[in-house]
């Protein structure tokens, strides 16, 4: 038997190669079960996220529910002109950014801190008990959470005013004071979600190889040093991914909670774009105007998530895509 090795350029192969389409068809034939599992999600996406996009066009129309989407006349950017001329919208936009910013600054690090603290708790019973306690508010309906907050800050029987009363302070009707709305809202959000959100970081911490810690122990690192030099850098990609997602949702302030907690007296600091859209669209019946506000919100969110992803990709090698 003789063996001859001949170097041939790949392009000049004399063997018939499958085309790109053939390769895709072969792949689908081979892996059809996996794609079949995707079908329910794709249907859900089409029905609930893509089909409604058809209705976005009313942001550029003088929409009337009697004429319908197609028959309503085009009016260009008129709703957007009105939107930016509206003092209420500008206030809502400002409030959205301020509340989002504070939520990001105070709310984003909280689950990370919780996860780091849980990771340091050695007593399993104590760790499990505290984890259960901090996860619990996530599973309570927002309506009940709002009820608890309203009761807690009530000027007559609320625990907060009762405690303040012990120190001789006069009762404060917190939920009617614009200056108190943001701290209460942001604090409520942290209380409700920080524990549950810490699960993601706990999972990331669980993925760190124990030998890294053992190696550090032999090298002489303290627990504090291990947290700073191993745990946090190891979960940094997860933190960045969560940050990108959070920035993408920056304008998606938890509007159910705001609806439940705010009142005309606190609109000055509490009214956000989504509550503005809700009032204009559903309460005042200005669907086209509300659609314009919603579209603007979505475009800003899209720009934010793209920007955050690019920055993260450039500086940390971590990105969503």
């Amino acid at each position: 038997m003789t063996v001859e090795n001949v170097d041939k350029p790949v392009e000049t192969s004399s063997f018939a190669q499958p085309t790109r389409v053939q390769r895709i068809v072969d792949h689908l034939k081979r892996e059809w079960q996996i794609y079949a599992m995707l079908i329910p999600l794709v249907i859900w996406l089409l029905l609930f996220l893509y089909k409604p996009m058809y209705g976005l066009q009313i942001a550029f129309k003088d929409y009337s529910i009697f004429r319908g989407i197609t028959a309503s006349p085009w009016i260009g950017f008129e709703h957007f002109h009105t939107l930016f001329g509206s003092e209420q919208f500008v206030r809502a936009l400002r409030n959205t950014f301020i509340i989002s910013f504070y939520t990001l600054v105070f709310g984003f690090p909280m689950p990370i801190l919780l996860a780091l603290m849980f990771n340091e708790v050695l007593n399993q019973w104590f760790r499990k008990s505290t984890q259960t306690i901090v996860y619990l508010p996530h599973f309570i309906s927002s309506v009940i959470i709002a009820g608890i907050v309203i009761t807690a800050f009530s000027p007559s029987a609320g625990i907060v005013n009762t405690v303040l009363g012990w120190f001789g302070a006069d009762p404060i009707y917190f939920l009617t004071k614009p200056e108190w709305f943001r701290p209460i809202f942001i604090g409520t959000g942290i209380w409700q979600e920080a524990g549950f959100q810490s699960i993601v970081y706990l999972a990331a911490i669980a993925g760190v190889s124990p030998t890294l810690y053992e190696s550090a122990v032999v090298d002489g690192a303290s627990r504090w040093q291990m947290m700073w030099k191993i745990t946090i850098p190891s979960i940094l990609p997860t933190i960045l991914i969560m940050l990108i997602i959070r920035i993408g949702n920056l304008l998606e302030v938890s509007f159910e909670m705001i609806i439940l907690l705010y009142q005309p007296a606190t609109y000055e600091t509490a009214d956000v774009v989504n509550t503005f859209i809700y009032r204009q669209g559903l309460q005042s019946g200005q669907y086209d105007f509300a659609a314009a506000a919603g579209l603007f919100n979505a475009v800003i969110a899209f720009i934010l998530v793209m920007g955050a992803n690019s920055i993260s990709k450039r500086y940390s090698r971590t990105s969503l895509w």
Partner: protein
Amino acid sequence: MAGVKLESIVKRYGAVQVVHGINLDVDEKEFVVLVGPSGCGKSTTLRMIAGLEEISDGQLTIDTRVMNRVAPKDRDVAMVFQNYALYPHLNVADNIAFGLRIRKESKDKIAASIKEVSGILGLTDYLDRRPADLSGGQRQRVAMGRAIVRDPKVFLFDEPLSNLDAKLRTQMRAEIKRLHKRLGATSIYVTHDQVEAMTLADRIVVMNDGRIEQLGTPMELFLNPANTFVASFLGSPPMNLVKATLGPGENGPTAHFAGQSMPLAPLDALQNRDGDEVIVGIRPEYVDVATAEDATQVQVNLELVETLGSEALLHATLAGDPFVIKAETQGNAAYLQKVTGFTIKPEMLRVFDAATGHAVPGQDRQAA
């Protein structure tokens, strides 16, 4: 550098005891290898020396200081882990410097140490790379660099070559050996690979089921295994063990099995023991193969010949049990296909008591 002394070291996890009173004295600058099958307690013993596992009972001394209750960082040991334990977010230089930075060494000293160690290990060109951008061998060198840079009293290696392919393992084995010669550091090395143990160790500790089966130089253990476990663990391929009955022969005690016989060395311990059960150990490389035309002492049924180049492994059966022979091909592998038996000198056999598995006394050979 310092010596390490383990006295009656015990490890228990609840009611389960996994290390049963180990005694070991590692001399200064010595390279000792703990070898044994998975679950034999060798890694647990190493981790107790490092301080990563608590010692349940017994006493550990490093350089005259009792270390049982001393924190790992104060034991002045460095450990190289099986999976390297490199920090993925740090580059090679920062990985090497990690221990020094933790100990708050000066920047000048850290820079000088990185330069020296990277030079020794051939990592100078890779200092800016992260572990993910390195090959397995390079990662292993970084892991060793991190240990060397601290200039510890004792080096501990926990199966450091297990994740490498065969070729790289051989190469890194030689590098570790060279490094030990250069640094002269007291080293304790855990492996389940008997080839690593034989090639690296000044002394080998064979462990099984949480106990030391035998302790000695590689050649002492190879020539004079204390029991059937050590005999079947060391050597590649390991020693063949043939069950036999002692009986009379022309020149003294003889092993009888499956209608055949083999004269044994005239040991005092084998006198007047006719009828006793023994196990005869036959190293695969000590036999002289023979064909039907030659004078054959013991007949085997040849099943398969594996040619390895200059050598060949002959897989056969003897009395129904597998029997392996290692023979030189001498450029004529066809001859080996006709093998029907072998001859062996009585003094090359190792006789074990069948009841206890221990070697019969008085047959130890001097290691060259």
